[in-house]
């Protein structure tokens, strides 16, 4: 193989990374629907899908084929452009945020080091928040374009909900940012490597933010559930929620659970791949938690949801920021 120039190599590796990440994400989203159906089914003492392939494993594929062959019904009175645009927007934005999510350490090709991440933006967290908050548009537009009172109510409620929980979610992560001192997701994760050492005593507890930011984590998790419109906050239901679910689960892992850090052992190639495994495992736990919750909880009423967000989560997030900043200032003094 001829040696590639640096630019060519960079381009090639990036393209491969994008392709792999997209493939994995699309598959995850598809199989998340399978997982959700299976897990909820077993919670509810049912079987769930089991006809298409072993244990219904080909069900997402069958669903996809069905959707392709289905007739698209566009109601007469809808605003056509917006009606088509809204779902595109929703999916595009949901996939966009995955671009800055790091899912492992580094690897080396031809003496050059690459990250397991499509691109390491130094304001990665801000980027994700920016992109996910744009998701409100897709919901407002969808609710508006269908020209029905019900979907209009749904759109309004959902956008109000997303905007209010966005603030709580933003506040929840401020604590971790103050500890890490960077907005780069990679930087935040790097700050969580190793174990907590108190004085000279090694606790062998991983140095994850969850242990210093439990309140922040609680606020983040609750707000994230609301942000992705899942039960018990699922007033309007939609399926683009799956990829949003992946995003917020990734973020929770990165911010509070040490990202890809975990025990490393074995030969070199294993040491390179294990972080990815740990990362995926942690994300999977969050996804499972989401599904588990869906099988257990009833739903909030709209006004209760709003007051919970504004009157409880937001003050709690603020208090957390205040407390963290005092501690950080005291430690650095």
């Amino acid at each position, binding site marked *: 193989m001829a040696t590639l120039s640096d630019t060519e190599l960079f381009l090639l590796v990036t393209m491969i990374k994008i392709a792999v990440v997209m493939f994995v994400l699309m598959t995850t989203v598809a199989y998340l629907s399978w997982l959700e159906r299976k897990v909820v089914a077993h919670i509810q003492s049912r079987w769930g899908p089991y006809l298409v392939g072993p244990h219904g494993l080909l069900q997402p594929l069958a669903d996809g084929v069905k959707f392709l062959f289905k007739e698209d019904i566009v109601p007469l009175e809808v605003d056509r452009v917006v009606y088509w645009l809204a779902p595109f927007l929703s999916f595009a934005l949901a996939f966009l945020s995955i671009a800055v999510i790091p899912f492992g350490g580094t690897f080396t090709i031809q003496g050059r080091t690459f990250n397991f991440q499509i691109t390491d933006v130094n304001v990665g967290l801000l980027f994700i928040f920016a992109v996910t908050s744009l998701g409100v548009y897709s919901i407002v537009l969808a609710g508006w374009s269908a020209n029905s009172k019900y979907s209009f109510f749904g759109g309004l409620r959902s956008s109000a909900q997303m905007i209010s929980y966005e603030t709580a979610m933003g506040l929840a992560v401020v604590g971790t940012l103050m500890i890490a001192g960077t907005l780069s997701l990679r930087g935040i994760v790097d700050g969580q490597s190793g174990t907590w050492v108190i004085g000279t005593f090694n606790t062998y507890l991983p140095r994850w933010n969850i242990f210093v930011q439990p309140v922040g984590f609680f606020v983040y998790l609750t707000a994230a559930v609301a942000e992705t419109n899942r039960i*018990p906050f699922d007033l309007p239901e939609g399926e683009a929620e799956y990829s949003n679910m992946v995003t917020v689960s990734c973020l929770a892992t990165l911010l509070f659970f040490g990202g890809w850090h975990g025990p490393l052992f074995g030969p070199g190639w294993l040491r390179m791949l294990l972080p990815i495994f740990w990362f995926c495992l942690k994300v999977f736990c969050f996804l499972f938690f989401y599904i588990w919750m869906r099988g257990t909880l*009833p739903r909030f*009423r709209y006004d209760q949801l709003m007051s919970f967000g504004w009157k409880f989560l937001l003050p709690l997030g603020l208090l957390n920021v205040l407390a963290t900043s005092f501690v950080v200032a005291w430690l650095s003094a």
Partner: protein
Amino acid sequence: MPVTLEKIPGQEERVILNMGPQHPSTHGVLRLVLELEGETVVRSLYDIGYLHTGFEKSFEAKTYTQCITLTDRMDYLAPLSNNLGFCLATEKLLELEIPPTAQWIRVLLTELTRIQSHLVWLGSHAIDLGAMSVFLYCFREREILETIFENVAGQRMMTSYFRVGGLAVEPPLGWLKPVEKFVREFPDHLREYEDLLTKNPIWLERTVGVGKVSAEDAVAIGLSGPSLRGSGVKWDIRKNQPYSSYEKFEFDVPTRSEGDVYARYLVRLEEMRQSLRIVRQAIDGMPEGRVRANAPHIVMPDREEMKTSIEGLIYHFKLVTEGFHPPIGEVYQAIESPRGELGFYMVSDGSPKPFRCHVRAPSFANLQSLGKMIEGRLIADVVACIGSIDIILGEVDR
């Protein structure tokens, strides 16, 4: 042209919203027209009749025995209660005495029906408020009950098992085994539902203080059943006007004074426990004996008798071709169905078909309370309120 609400001049910004008849949370084909200020319901109007089948008129064209199959279909979640109401009314007309075994089996089966009906209510009420799993748990247990009904009557839902003068056939040997098993296991399942809902903060938020009906209003509207007892009025026909030897059973009538959705929920859950108590007593004290009254001109003879004796053959022929002739008169007989006071007002002109049979359906009367519950509340509460009244549209429209 379906009825609708007219906008009040000066209040044009209010939205008129049509809800139903296909809305999944209206429990059938109830249609509501709501006037909304923001998301608050200002006025409401209900439109019933989408399931009108003319049961009451059909009664007049059928013999008493044929009518029983129609009663199943009115309240399709409590067919045996309806069978019982109709049979009791006819028996009152005939002044017919029923053997104790038949009475006890009737009590046992109608109490199981009550549990079965409450299970469907609990499941659908919970799924309306987003608790999906409870729905399937309830249906899991309901399945056991349906199997018991099928075992006894040959049908899961449209049982038509009670006859004027007793039961259609003797229940099969060993039929009490699955009932005993159910009675043993069901309290655990009840605890399971309660774990998921009763103290769940979200469930409390959605139900406590929602859809309040005061005791005075409840009586004025004509509420009955758990909805009435949820408002603190201790009235249960099984206790106050006992029928089918309910006076011989020991049970409590649960009441709550709050009158909200949560109170009605608790009352129904407690009712299931009380029904279980009655079933247990019925199993333990089940008397031996015939399941049909000794009244050859009303009750079908045994197959054996019909084939071997001339009287049996004649009675069989007369009953099948013509039916029995009750005396001229009119009666009203009410029972406590899972939903409340189910009354049959029967007029006989001496012919084998009822001259008029009016049904006092509990769902119809209970539905009237909905307006009181939802006005001034949010749309999301409408769903909770409809669920808490536990209406069956087949019974509302008849």
